[in-house]
């Protein structure tokens, strides 16, 4: 796919990238600043296609985050910065990856608190959480820890005031606008709503992370 307008037909561009939004991060990296998650997803998808097509030259890493995409290990930063000015990523480029089902036992230690924050019963909270299709917006915190968006903004919850010193692997948890699934046992301050037995991280698998950026996810209620 080219950078040209109209390449995706009915899907409108998420938007051009203003010149000031492309920042240098040292001699070999560019940080692109965007309004939000949808634009990040679109640009990240577009950049992956451009890289596969060989249009970016050598690029070591593409790292999406909440409002940025980092291009690191870039051989020719000037050429890539110029190309970014012509980018017209569309939402169609963001929608990629197979739909992954995450069977979840909703018995988390913070489920009652989350339900109370939402002003609903625990059963209704489970229905709310299993409703939307989520997308892995980016990874961080630990290898394979994906930040999933998809829950409507009115269901944002704060982090716990006191983080837990140990959260078991497979814990399904909420913080801010995100849902995450802990791939490894670790300390954590997110609100635990459930757990899944799905192996989220396996270094012998390619890719090692089940919840890689761009993956689409649906949580389903499973029996204990």
């Amino acid at each position, binding site marked *: 796919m080219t950078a040209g307008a109209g390449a995706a037909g009915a899907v409108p561009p998420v938007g051009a990238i203003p010149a000031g939004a492309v*920042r*240098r*991060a*040292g*001699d070999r990296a560019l940080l692109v600043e965007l309004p939000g998650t949808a634009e990040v997803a679109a640009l990240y998808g577009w950049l992956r296609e451009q890289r596969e097509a060989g249009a970016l030259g050598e690029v*070591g890493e593409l*790292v999406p*985050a909440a409002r940025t995409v980092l291009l690191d290990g870039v051989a020719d930063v000037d050429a890539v910065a110029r190309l970014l000015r012509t980018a017209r990523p569309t939402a169609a480029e963001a929608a990629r990856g197979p739909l992954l089902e995450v069977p979840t036992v909703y018995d988390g230690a913070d489920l009652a608190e989350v339900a109370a924050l939402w002003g609903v019963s625990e059963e209704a909270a489970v229905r709310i959480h299993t409703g939307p299709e989520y997308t892995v917006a980016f990874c961080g915190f630990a*290898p394979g820890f994906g930040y999933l968006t998809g829950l409507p903004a009115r269901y944002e919850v704060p982090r716990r005031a006191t983080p837990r010193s140990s959260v078991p692997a497979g814990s399904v948890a909420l913080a801010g606008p995100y849902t995450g699934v802990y791939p490894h046992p670790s300390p954590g301050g997110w609100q635990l709503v459930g757990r899944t037995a799905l192996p989220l991280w396996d270094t012998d698998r390619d890719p090692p992370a089940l919840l890689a*950026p761009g993956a689409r996810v649906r949580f389903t209620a499973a029996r204990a």
Partner: protein
Amino acid sequence: MSELVVVRPGPLTTVQDLGRYGVAHLGVPRAGALDEPALRAANRLVGNEPGAAGLETTLGGVALRAVGRVLVAVTGAPAPVRVGGRAAAWGAPVVVPDGAVVEVGAATDGVRGYLAVAGGVAVPPVLGSRSADLLAGLGPAPLTAGDRLPVGTPPPYRARPELVPLPAPPAELVLRLRLGPRADWFSPDAVARLGRDGYRVSSTSNRVGLRTEGPPVARARGGELPSEGMVLGAVQIPPDGQPVVFLADHPTTGGYPVVGVVPAADLAAAAQARPGTPVRFVPLRGH
């Protein structure tokens, strides 16, 4: 297959190669040797590919018993080297006979030493690298006494120049600083002072970052930055204003503004600067 058996692990000795690439978007740090030129030089001395895995020591050295005859070379922080109790060369290929112990003593200067072995340390690679990642816990754990490290098949040895240029650890650490991506979070005055004021290497430095101590770098604006991708050499300014230079085990994303980025060429010296070493940042403008 030859082996190296750990007799004395030293304060912190890890297996390192050139690190992991292409997996930052999954939250996997790069890891790899902090003083990359020193690892490359050690590998060259024993006839390895530059990216073969070796051992990175920290201040206190390491002692290893050879199972099978091996060829090793020690570079990085200068340190006494002994084989079978007898003095041996630093910065040169050294034969360790079967059953003999090679000892790297405490560094006389600098911090990180590198021991390469012909054939490389052949632990199984994880995501394309044998490096120990102390932040994410990938790769082999730091060495402990009794560990047995497999050694790969040595490449056919070809004579190499005996003198590999190895810079001395710095008396003053000069770090060039390419401003951005978040220099605008700081006033021009604060950035100018960062270049003028003296900093020192903090004793809390580790493989994740070189922490420095000095006059706090004040922010020009409040608020929080959503976490964003981080590069090697990024100089983060946390709320206490004390600059942190990201080294090989740095997290892939971070939420403190990055005032500038130290070029990779300056980071080998950062890996060798002891706590208390004066640090001077030299801001570079434009591109």
